[in-house]
């Protein structure tokens, strides 16, 4: 049998039962690889359940630093009998399968093209520990010990991590270290360690990774820190997976960093609302009254918040919403990742509305863009929605460290205080003095005589006086469109990458790929694979809506543009078609909407298939390239 080989390049998947403490053991495994300086990307694929259902944890190791899902499993660690049949089947030929052999493996689970490693996890833990909870928890640590031997993880790093994790709880440290050692010793004595797939410090790791000081963090924590650093003072929210940890983390940091040293009182307010409607209402109220306020939610919450997003758009109230996207409505897929709120967010609410969207692709960007979202919301006096997703928000990503410029000043936008009102020649809430569609707002309580106005939806004139005149309405909504144009210069520009040199090109078409958020990592990887195969593809990563004018030009410059995203209907493609002057035939969707993040392999396969079938049509559309 030909075994899979690879130094610092493989995919390990853990199959567990949720609620058994596996997540922290699996995290320990991933973090140890990270501490060895080897690029790693762990992903928790979990059910909407607290205890008893199958859950998986994927750990991708990539010397080149690819952080997206690759697809395929090189080694499976299976401690869940429920899913074992499927788990055995999913291992690539030549791969490896570690299992608990306290009970012998059923005949139907035996394949002759993979290598099995039986470790009597249950038996060892029953023998070593009296406490049933410890028997269950430490089983996970035992297999991490065995994996350390099989893959050559530096044992001292695992020990250090346990000491950090259980700081001050010596008993826990020693029992965990003991479990690790048991697994390690068993594997060393029983198997031929290390395997052909293994880890090596330094080794073939890409130099740009070795030289940097990366951190391992999830996007939700980064966004929460962004809200702290961006000066958010009011957070109103309703618990919903996968966004819950944004406000949890905000609360944790705020309790540490936002306590007034003199009085011990809080320089922030967090309200767990009765629903998402109220959460957004509170944010709108606080934003109207001059506080930096935000909420975090996911798809169903976004639907409920739509009415208020429309009001905030028309009433021109700064609002920051962090949308951590997941799959579809109601039951079933709330713990699975998608990028499927694009259209619902871009056009949130009834009437003519367009919302400002940001698309972070890394935890670092979650941090930076959340800070920027607060500035943008006040500069543009409108909602700003940061479109994260479960994969980015809840999984740990290797990321450049967070950076902060102490010279940063919050940009509160055009707000007239008492002095400003006194020196203004004429003030009307909706007077477009500067011609950029952004008017001057005032805050309640600012001036005894001037600047008071009545905030409404759409029925008003430039002086904020109630009006149902068609002319006033048209003037107002046209100005809002002007403001949206202005926003193009404020929001983050897309990122383009120079094309990869291809020696012998197999296509005459000028190809490009557009993507955003968590589709970016696997997309960059896929583009490199395709370049190797003779297909040069230029890339643009979209970072915001409204789209930058470069987007139009970029699409114009190519014959065929793949739009890579994680939803069924190609929502970004539709948004581009809607907002840019683009012939739909130029844009081809590359999609994954299964709930697990898109893989580089899936992107490569879809692009190659598409090139096979599409080239002829496209060539006939563009005679000059034929």
């Amino acid at each position: 049998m030909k075994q899979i080989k690879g130094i610092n390049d493989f995919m390990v998947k853990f199959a567990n039962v949720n609620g058994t403490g596996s997540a922290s053991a699996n995290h320990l495994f991933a973090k140890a690889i990270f501490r060895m300086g080897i690029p790693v990307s762990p992903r928790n694929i979990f059910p909407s359940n607290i205890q008893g259902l199958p859950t998986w944890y994927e750990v991708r190791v990539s010397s080149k630093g690819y952080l997206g899902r690759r697809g395929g499993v090189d080694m499976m660690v299976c401690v869940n009998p429920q899913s074992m049949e499927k788990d055995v089947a999913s291992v690539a030929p030549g791969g490896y399968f570690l299992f608990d052999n306290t009970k012998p493996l059923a005949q139907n689970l035996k394949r002759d093209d993979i290598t099995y490693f039986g470790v009597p996890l249950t038996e060892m833990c029953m023998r070593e520990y009296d406490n049933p909870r410890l028997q269950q928890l430490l089983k996970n640590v035992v297999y991490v010990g065995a994996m350390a031997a099989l893959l050559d993880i530096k044992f001292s790093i695992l020990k250090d991590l346990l000491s950090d994790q259980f700081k001050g709880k010596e008993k826990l440290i020693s029992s965990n270290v003991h479990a690790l050692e048991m697994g390690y010793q068993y594997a060393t004595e029983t198997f031929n360690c290390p395997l052909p797939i293994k880890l090596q410090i330094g080794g073939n790791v890409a130099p740009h990774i070795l030289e940097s000081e990366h951190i391992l963090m999830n996007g939700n924590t980064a966004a929460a820190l962004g809200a702290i650093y961006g000066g958010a003072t009011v957070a109103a929210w309703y618990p919903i997976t996968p966004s819950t940890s944004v406000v949890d983390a905000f609360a944790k940091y705020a309790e540490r960093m936002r306590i007034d040293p003199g009085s011990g009182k809080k320089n922030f307010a967090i309200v767990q609302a009765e629903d998402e409607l109220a959460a957004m209402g509170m944010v709108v109220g606080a934003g109207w009254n001059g506080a930096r306020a935000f909420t975090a939610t996911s798809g169903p919450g976004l639907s409920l918040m739509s009415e208020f997003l429309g009001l905030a758009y028309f009433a021109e109230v700064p609002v920051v919403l962090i949308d951590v996207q997941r799959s579809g409505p109601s039951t079933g897929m709330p713990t699975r990742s998608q990028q499927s709120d694009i259209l619902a967010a871009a056009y949130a609410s009834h009437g003519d509305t367009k919302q400002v969207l940001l698309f972070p692709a890394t935890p670092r960007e979650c941090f930076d863009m959340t800070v920027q979202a607060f500035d943008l919301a006040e500069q543009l006096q409108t909602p700003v929605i940061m479109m994260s997703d479960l994969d980015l928000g809840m999984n740990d990503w290797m990321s450049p460290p967070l950076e902060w410029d102490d010279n940063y000043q919050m940009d509160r936008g055009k707000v007239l205080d008492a002095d400003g009102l006194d020196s203004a020649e004429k003030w009307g809430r909706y007077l477009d003095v500067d011609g950029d569609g952004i008017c001057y707002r005032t805050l309640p309580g600012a001036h005894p005589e001037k600047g008071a106005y009545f905030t409404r939806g759409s029925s008003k004139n430039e002086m904020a006086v109630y009006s149902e005149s068609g002319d006033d309405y048209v003037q107002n909504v046209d100005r809002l469109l002007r403001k949206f144009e202005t926003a193009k210069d404020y929001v983050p520009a897309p990122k383009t990458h120079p094309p990869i040199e291809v020696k012998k090109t197999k296509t005459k078409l000028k190809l490009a790929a557009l993507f955003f958020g968590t589709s970016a990592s696997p997309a960059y990887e896929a583009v490199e694979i395709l370049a190797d195969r003779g297909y040069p593809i230029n890339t643009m990563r979209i970072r915001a809506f409204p789209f930058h004018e470069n987007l139009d030009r970029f699409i114009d410059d190519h014959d065929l543009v793949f739009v890579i995203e994680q939803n069924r209907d190609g929502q970004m493609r539709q948004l581009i078609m809607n907002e840019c002057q683009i012939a739909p035939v130029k844009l081809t969707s590359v999609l994954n909407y299964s709930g697990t993040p898109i893989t580089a392999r899936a992107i490569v396969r879809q692009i190659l298939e598409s090139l096979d079938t599409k080239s002829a049509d496209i060539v006939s559309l563009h005679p000059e390239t034929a």
Partner: protein
Amino acid sequence: MSYIKPKFRHPNLPTNALGFTVADYDGAISTLCAGCGHDSISAAIQNACFLSAIPPHRIAKLSGIGCSSKMPTYFLGKSHGFNSVHGRMPSVATGASLANRELTYIGVSGDGDTASIGMGQFVHLIRRNVNMAYIVANNGCYGLTKGQDSATADLGSVSKYGSTNPFDGIDLASLALLQGAGFVGRSFSGDKEQLEPLIRAAMAHKGFAFIDVVSPCVTFNNHLGSTKSYTETREHLDSMPLDFVPMREEISTHYDAGTTQGVTLHDGSVIHLHKASSDYQTDDRNAAMISVQNAKDEGRILTGLLYLDPNSQNLDQNLKLATKPLNEMGKDELCPGSRVLNSINEGLR
């Protein structure tokens, strides 16, 4: 019906402690139907703010949607206002009050806006004890959509179209009592003598203050058979009169000893309750609930200060909110800086 508000005011209008006249608390001309109870409530709010000498610009007025929610346009033109979305004013008011705890917040809502679409937000507003005065102009019907029954319409009340309401009405004052509101009052738009001091007391109360005001709809619910018509309301009114003496003013007894009881608010203001027919105790929530229920059973509309807990802990207190308004905080108070961020980075390696 007039469509221009006269600008002329008597040159010798009395001034309040701040030197403002009542005209300084004026709003735009009302576009509600002539004789609408809501206009009397607007006038009462305007006068209450004048009498209590609150600087107009330090008041924020918020509303939802409906005839009631148009009202804030018609008083306090020098105050910021927010006509939000239907049934959601409570959340907007909550956020606004968190952003700046120093302003006085007046929420104006209706029976549709509060008892139907806004019921969820209303009870949670009470539960959180947001520091604001919340006034419901209650006419038992939907005015702007032409007279449908609302959820507060009484059982057996006949609509303008002749149908009899088969459902029991939601009693918002009882609900507020049950949910733990620290200040619950009920009044009648036609009873200025009672409504004004009640509004003043509600604004002085440091927490959520609820006033249910029966406010007849002259166009759609003022006919024979309606339980919320002017005639019907006046006939069944069981009014407990009161006075409000703000903290600044020396308390002088206007009433014979033994006929009033005084309730002191947190800021030192005093509410004088004139003893009516009963020995009503405003500090007994359970008794208040029984009194309201008994009155209902007997076909009386019990109005006045129904319950008061001057020491209830409001949201700002429960959240341990800093004294300085959140909307005035800057980088120094809010941004931990690069050194702290670097140490966070360290912890993530």
